[in-house]
């Protein structure tokens, strides 16, 4: 098999044209200057490279690590440690590594490192975010030190988004669980748990002239008001997770910039083991009963938009306009569905959310208020986040509020939120029996032709609208705030917002 046989995106010629400067020794690096202070929304609970440890951890990992692929500022897949990649007709993916890609300690990045990363993530008992996907890789071949061929047990069309995810970086062979040595633009200098992480520019980064900063001081500001105050007072240069009430003041401040995208979203999940939530008619009734504008106003100060279908953006080629308002606010329809389900007078139930985060609490309160109008008497269960997570994983709830972002802008990026066949998780509904969704997700993942995939996901969304594996409530604006001294940082579009740490390599301070 040759790379010449690849059917799509082979060798990313266009990308290579734009990144020709990558070739060559990293000695061409310009003198990096300035230490950027980055206000994180929390201290990363873990630095484990392959583990999903939330947004702040993702941002720090994007400073330290690089994967085979990543995204450019427009949200398009680009080569990272892999300069060429493609898939052949038998579904074997081949990645050709850059010659000048090296680890922080100077060793070259090799195919053996990629193999080690995949095997570590796929190992039984691994806590990697993508263990299930990695376990589909049944053969890893290394024709030479810079080439890796991956044979999946079934065709795997979404390998690009998998290997572009920030929870799927490549780590050096023999790394321990944390894997703090990476091939990214910065390396850890020191850290204090709960407080800050100090990073310095890597001398070995493979992109000439990058990073532009001499270092980053990532400081955890768990209190969102202080995070904003620190930005306004000039204590920090850049903050993530700008709180929604503060977006206006940052936007109006001439010395600050607010970079906002809509991508992350809020939704309801259901426990099919608790009656009447096993009934899709009830789930649909709930989906029709909530006025989404009020959720946007109450929880996000108007910074967002209603979401009355699956979280697939209208900018996506997989967007299905006929479903745009499929779960639109319609109390009469909701009542009719409840009556059809045998609950004309409603019922009593408990909604799980958390008091720890205002957006979750407000969303729950609005949902409670609207459901009361169709006779559903909701009691709120608002424990701290730790308890909410445990209750969600254990299925100790009737229905629940959740907020997140998809893994990518590809429709398969929401698979982990709607596939009822996956193991229990607080992030998705539990005990639902909708095998058609699992089957269509699998089919979509194994289909390489975009047009054919569109048909599959359209069918999937139609089924999801009826079965309601999740009830979308609203898109929320996700913002970064920065001082006017900062240039080059970019909030990546849509669901990729949490990948924005990628652009820290191009960020400079004036």
């Amino acid at each position, binding site marked *: 098999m040759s790379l010449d046989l690849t059917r799509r995106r082979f060798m990313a010629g266009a990308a290579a044209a734009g990144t020709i400067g990558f070739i060559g020794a990293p000695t061409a690096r310009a003198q990096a200057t300035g230490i950027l202070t980055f206000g994180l929304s929390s201290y990363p609970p873990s630095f484990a490279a392959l583990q999903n440890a939330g947004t702040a951890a993702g941002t720090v990992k994007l400073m330290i690590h690089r994967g085979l692929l990543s995204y450019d500022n427009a949200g398009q897949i680009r080569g990272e440690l892999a300069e060429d990649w493609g898939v052949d007709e038998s579904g074997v993916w081949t990645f050709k590594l850059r010659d000048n890609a090296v680890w922080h300690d100077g060793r070259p990045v090799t195919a053996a490192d990629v193999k080690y990363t995949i095997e570590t993530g796929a190992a039984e008992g691994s806590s990697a975010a993508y263990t299930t996907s990695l376990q589909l890789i049944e053969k890893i071949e290394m024709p030479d030190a810079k080439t890796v061929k991956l044979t999946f047990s079934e065709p795997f069309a979404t390998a690009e988004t998998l290997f572009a995810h920030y929870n799927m970086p490549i780590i050096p062979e023999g790394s321990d669980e944390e894997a703090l040595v990476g091939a990214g633009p910065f390396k850890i200098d020191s850290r204090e*748990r709960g407080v800050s992480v100090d990073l310095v520019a890597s001398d070995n980064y493979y992109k000439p002239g990058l990073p532009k900063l001499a270092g980053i001081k990532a400081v955890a500001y768990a209190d969102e008001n202080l995070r904003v*105050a620190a930005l306004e007072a000039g204590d920090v240069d850049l903050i993530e997770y700008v709180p929604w009430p503060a977006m206006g003041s940052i936007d109006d401040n001439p010395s600050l910039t607010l970079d906002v995208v809509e991508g992350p979203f809020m939704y309801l999940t259901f426990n099919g083991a608790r009656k009447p939530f096993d009934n899709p008619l009830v789930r649909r009734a709930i989906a029709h009963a909530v006025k989404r504008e009020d959720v946007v106003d109450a929880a996000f100060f108007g910074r967002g938009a209603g979401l009355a279908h699956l979280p697939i953006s209208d900018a996506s080629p997989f967007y299905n306009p006929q479903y745009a308002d499929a779960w639109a606010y319609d109390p009469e329809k909701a009542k009719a569905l409840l009556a059809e389900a045998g609950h004309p007078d409603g019922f009593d139930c408990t909604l799980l959310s958390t008091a720890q985060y205002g957006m979750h609490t407000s969303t729950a309160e609005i949902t409670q208020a609207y459901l009361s109008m169709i006779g559903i008497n909701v009691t709120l269960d608002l424990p701290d986040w730790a308890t909410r997570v445990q209750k969600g*994983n254990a299925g100790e709830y009737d229905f629940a509020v959740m907020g997140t972002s998809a893994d990518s802008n590809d429709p398969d990026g929401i698979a982990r*939120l709607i596939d009822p066949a996956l193991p229990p998780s607080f992030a998705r509904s539990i005990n639902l029996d909708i095998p058609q969704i699992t089957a269509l997700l699998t089919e979509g993942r194994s289909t390489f032709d975009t047009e054919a995939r569109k048909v599959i996901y359209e069918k999937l969304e139609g089924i999801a609208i009826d079965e309601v594996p999740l009830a979308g409530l609203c898109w929320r604006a996700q913002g970064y705030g920065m001082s006017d001294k900062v240039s080059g940082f970019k909030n990546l579009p849509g669901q990729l917002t949490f990948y924005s740490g990628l652009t820290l390599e191009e960020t400079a301070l004036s």
Partner: protein
Amino acid sequence: MLAYVAQRIAVAVLMVWLVATIVFLLLHIVPGDPAELLLSTGSTAPDPAAVAALREKLGLNAPIYVQYWDYLTGLARGHLGNSLQDGTPVAEQVALRLPRTLELIVTAALVATAIGIPVGIRAATHAGGITDRLASGAAAVALSTPVFVIGTLAILLFAQTLKIAPAGGYVAFADNPVRHLGLLILPALTVATPLTAVIVRMTRSAVLEVLERDFVRAVRARGVAPRRILSRHVLRSALVPVVTVTGLELGTLLGGTVLVEFVYNWPGLSGFLVRAVDARDYPEVVGIVLTISALFVLINLVVDLLNAMLDPKVRLSA
């Protein structure tokens, strides 16, 4: 006196053990599994096998009484245990963060006593006057305003609007002394505000009470100068309850600076406790609470000894 001190120490040790035990048990009763939490920080499902493996590794599969016994025997060897989050010794974390909390509290106490005692004395000696009324009014406002409101307003005014102080954060004194002190000012003043109010009120009422006593009247009748009466006779008695209350307040502040540390991102021990509870990091929570209780008890002991030095009657009753 020695017997009294020995008895107090024995009771103190018992108290600290009780607190540690109660916190240990309570933490195991509340929902939230540390292993699951450590693996559930993103929105991806933790693999049950991974959770089980982590529980085993952290020793959480053992029955509670075994964990408790291990913990007690560890304590007896002077080992506070290791963090479940990153395996670092709890004692190391406490040693790193406790001085920062103490620095905040001690600075606040110095500011509060430096302001509170003179103002309280002045209010008492000029009872009903403008100073008294202003001080009483300000103390009432300071006591009824939650510290996080004071902190937030201070940040809004001094950091965001006037831009004359940093909003929060921490830099080690050794790294940058000026920046360190700059970052200390607002949180210390915030902690000091309610403490100052308590000291003003306490000093005022204690001085007033002593001023009414017969021996003061007698001294005054002998024609001794008021300033001398105050310094020689009144303050010596009046400061006993002030010292007691200030000491007790300091103990309370050890746990009570949580909100101030949170609001100002001051990386002390109190704020760290909140994060440890969030993560259900059992050894860390118990270790921190144990440290705080021990200090609280120690401060009480010191206060009693100080009182005994100031007032012989305390010694006699002991």
